[in-house]
C-alpha cells in the first residue's frame, strides 16, 4: 500500500509548493537583513529548498503517488499529479540545486543576489506547475510564471550589452509566442467549450464544421511549446539568449526550461488531442512534430558544427537535443507502444538535465577564471585543471552519445522506441545527427587535452571556486550514475507516459 494514502490529497502538490516557499523565504531573508550581503546563506537556502523538493518528489515517485490508483486531481482537475509531473519536478529540482550551488561563486561581488536566487526558484515553481497542468488555463499561467522570471534573469547583468541584448531577444520572441499560444488556446476553447484537457479530449471529436479552426488552434499551441523547448520555428532566440545570459542561467534555461516545455507538450497533446479522435479528422499532429524533429535536430547540429564560440556551440547543440526529444511526440500512431517512445524521451531529458547543466557550469567556471570563449582559449586547460576537464570530457562524450556514458543509453532507448513505432527514418536521421555531433563535441575535448596552451602554462587560474567545482562534479557523477541506474529510470518514465495514453 502506498505510504501517501495516509496523507491528505493536497499534499501531492507539496514539491511545487516547496519551490515557491523557498523563493519567498529568500526574499524574507533579504528584507530582514538587506544591507549586509550574505551570499552563503542565500545559496544555502536555495540549495536546501531545491534538495528538499527533490527529496519529496523523488519519494512520491518511488512510493507510487498518483501512479498506483490513478492520477491525483486537484482544483477540479486543473492540477494533475501523476508520474509525469513528479518525474519532471525531479529534473527541475536537480537542475536548480546544481545551478544554485554554482551561482554562489558566479555571483561573488555582485548585487541583487537574493533577487537572483528567488527569480530562479520562482521560475522553477512555474516549470514544476507546467508539468502538472491539467487545464489549458493552468498551462498558460504556469508557462508565463516560468517565462517572466527567465526574461529578467537573462538580462541580469544589466550593464553588460550582451546580457541585455540576450534578454531583449528572449523577451521579444517569448512575448510573440505567448500571444500565439493564447490565441491557439482560445481557438480550441471556441471549438470545444472547455479548457480542461480531459473535456477538450471528449469534445474535440465533434468539431464538425469547425475542424479547420481546431486544426489552426492545435498548430498554434504547438508553436507556443516550440518556444519553450527551443525547437524550430521558435528556436532563434536560443543561441543569443544562452550566449549572452550569465552561464548558470544558460544551464538552467537549456536544461530545466526545455524539460518543462516538453512536460507540458507531452501532457497536452497526449491527453487533450487523442490520436484516435483527431488524426482521422485530418489534425495529424505527430506528423507535424516529425517534421519539426527532423528540421530541429539537423539545423541545431549543423549550426553547432560551424561555431567558434564554445558557449554558442552548446546553445546550438541544445537546439539539436530538442530535436531528439521531439521524437517522443513524433513517433506515435504507428501502432507501436506509444508510452515507450515518449518515456524514452523523458529519460533522455533527465540525462540531458545532468550533462548539459554540467557543460554550461563548466563554461561558467571558465568565465570565472577569465579565460576566453573560443575553442582556442581552452587549449591545454587539462594541465591546469585536470579534474574539471575530466568532468567536461564526460559531458561532451555523453552529449554526443558515446557508449560508456548516460547519454548513450537514453539516445539508444529513444531511437529504439522510434523504430518500434515504425518510424525507422526518424531514428536514422537522429543517428546521423549524433555521429555529426561527435565532431564538434570532440573539438572541445581535443582542445583541452591535446593542444598546447597558446600563452604557455603556468598562468595562475586564481582561487578555486569551490561551489562551482562541486556542482560540476555532481553533474558528472549524475551523468555516470545514470548509466547503471538507467533501467529503473526509463521504466518509471515509460509507465508514467503510458498512463497518459490510457
Amino acid at each position, binding site marked *: 500500500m502506498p505510504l501517501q494514502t495516509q496523507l491528505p490529497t493536497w499534499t501531492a502538490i507539496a514539491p511545487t509548493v516547496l519551490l515557491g516557499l523557498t523563493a519567498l523565504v529568500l526574499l524574507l531573508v533579504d528584507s530582514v537583513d538587506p544591507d549586509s550581503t550574505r551570499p552563503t546563506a542565500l545559496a544555502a537556502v536555495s540549495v536546501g529548498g531545491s534538495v528538499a523538493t527533490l527529496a519529496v518528489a523523488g519519494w512520491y515517485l518511488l512510493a507510487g503517488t498518483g501512479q498506483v490508483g490513478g492520477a491525483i486531481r486537484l482544483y477540479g482537475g486543473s492540477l494533475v499529479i501523476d508520474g509525469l509531473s513528479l518525474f519532471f519536478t525531479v529534473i527541475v529540482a536537480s537542475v536548480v540545486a546544481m545551478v544554485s550551488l554554482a551561482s554562489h561563486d558566479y555571483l561573488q561581488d555582485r548585487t541583487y543576489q537574493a533577487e537572483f536566487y528567488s527569480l530562479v526558484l520562482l521560475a522553477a515553481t512555474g516549470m514544476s506547475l507546467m508539468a502538472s497542468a491539467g487545464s*489549458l*488555463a493552468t498551462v*498558460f*499561467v504556469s508557462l*508565463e510564471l516560468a517565462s*517572466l522570471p527567465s*526574461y*529578467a534573469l537573462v*538580462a541580469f547583468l*544589466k*550593464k553588460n*550589452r*550582451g546580457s*541585455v*541584448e*540576450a*534578454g*531583449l*531577444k528572449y*523577451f*521579444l520572441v517569448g*512575448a*510573440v509566442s*505567448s*500571444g*500565439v499560444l*493564447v*490565441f491557439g*488556446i*482560445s*481557438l480550441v*476553447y*471556441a471549438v470545444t*467549450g*472547455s*479548457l480542461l484537457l480531459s473535456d477538450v479530449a471528449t469534445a474535440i471529436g465533434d468539431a464538425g464544421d469547425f475542424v479547420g*479552426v481546431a486544426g489552426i488552434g492545435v498548430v498554434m499551441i504547438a508553436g507556443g511549446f516550440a518556444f519553450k523547448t527551443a525547437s524550430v520555428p521558435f528556436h532563434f532566440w536560443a543561441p*543569443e539568449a544562452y*550566449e*549572452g545570459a550569465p552561464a548558470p542561467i544558460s544551464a538552467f534555461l537549456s536544461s530545466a526550461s526545455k524539460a518543462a516545455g516538453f512536460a507540458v507538450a507531452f501532457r497536452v497533446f497526449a491527453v487533450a488531442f487523442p490520436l484516435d479522435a483527431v488524426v482521422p479528422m485530418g489534425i495529424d499532429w505527430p506528423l507535424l512534430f516529425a517534421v519539426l524533429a527532423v528540421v530541429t535536430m539537423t539545423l541545431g547540429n549543423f549550426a553547432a558544427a560551424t561555431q567558434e564560440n564554445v558557449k554558442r556551440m552548446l546553445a546550438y547543440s541544445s537546439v539539436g537535443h530538442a530535436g531528439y526529444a521531439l521524437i517522443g511526440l513524433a513517433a506515435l500512431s504507428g501502432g507501436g507502444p506509444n508510452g515507450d517512445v515518449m518515456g524514452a524521451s523523458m529519460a533522455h531529458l533527465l540525462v540531458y538535465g545532468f550533462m548539459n547543466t554540467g557543460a554550461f557550469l563548466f563554461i561558467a567556471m571558465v568565465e570565472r577564471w577569465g579565460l576566453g570563449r573560443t575553442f582556442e582559449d581552452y587549449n591545454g586547460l587539462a594541465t591546469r585543471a585536470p579534474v574539471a576537464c575530466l568532468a567536461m570530457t564526460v559531458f561532451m562524450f555523453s552529449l554526443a552519445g558515446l557508449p560508456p556514458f548516460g547519454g548513450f543509453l537514453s539516445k539508444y532507448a529513444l531511437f529504439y522506441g522510434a523504430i518500434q513505432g515504425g518510424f525507422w527514418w526518424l531514428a536514422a536521421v537522429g543517428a546521423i545527427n549524433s555521429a555529426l555531433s561527435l565532431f564538434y563535441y570532440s573539438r572541445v575535448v581535443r582542445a583541452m587535452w591535446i593542444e598546447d596552451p597558446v600563452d604557455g602554462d603556468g598562468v595562475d587560474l586564481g582561487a578555486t571556486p569551490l561551489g562551482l567545482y562541486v556542482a560540476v562534479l555532481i553533474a558528472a557523477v549524475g551523468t555516470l550514475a545514470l548509466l547503471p541506474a538507467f533501467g529503473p529510470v526509463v521504466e518509471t518514465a515509460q509507465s508514467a507516459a503510458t498512463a497518459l495514453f490510457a
Partner: protein
Amino acid sequence: MVPVEWYLLLAAAVFCIGLFGILTRSNALLFLMSVELMLNAANINLVAFSAYWGNVTGQTFGLFTMALAAAEVAVGIGIILVLYRNFDDVDVTLAKGMRR
C-alpha cells in the same frame, strides 16, 4: 444576434494586425503594443465563445490573460529600460552585437 463566426474573423483580423506590427516595426514600445493586440485578439474569442457555450470559463480565462499581459509588459518595460541605458535607443534592431 451576430453569428459567432464573425467574432472569429474579427479576432483573426486583430491578431494579424498585431503580427504585422511585430514584423514591420523596430521600436520596442510599438512592438509591445502589437503583442497586446495579439493577446487581446484571443480575449475577443474567449469572451464571444463564452457567451456561445453558456459557461464562464472563457470570460474568467480572459481576465487571466489581461493580468498576465500586464505582468509581461512590466517585465518588458524593465528590459527596454536597460536597453535604452546601454544603447541610448529603444530600436530593437540596434542590439545585434552577437551576430557575426
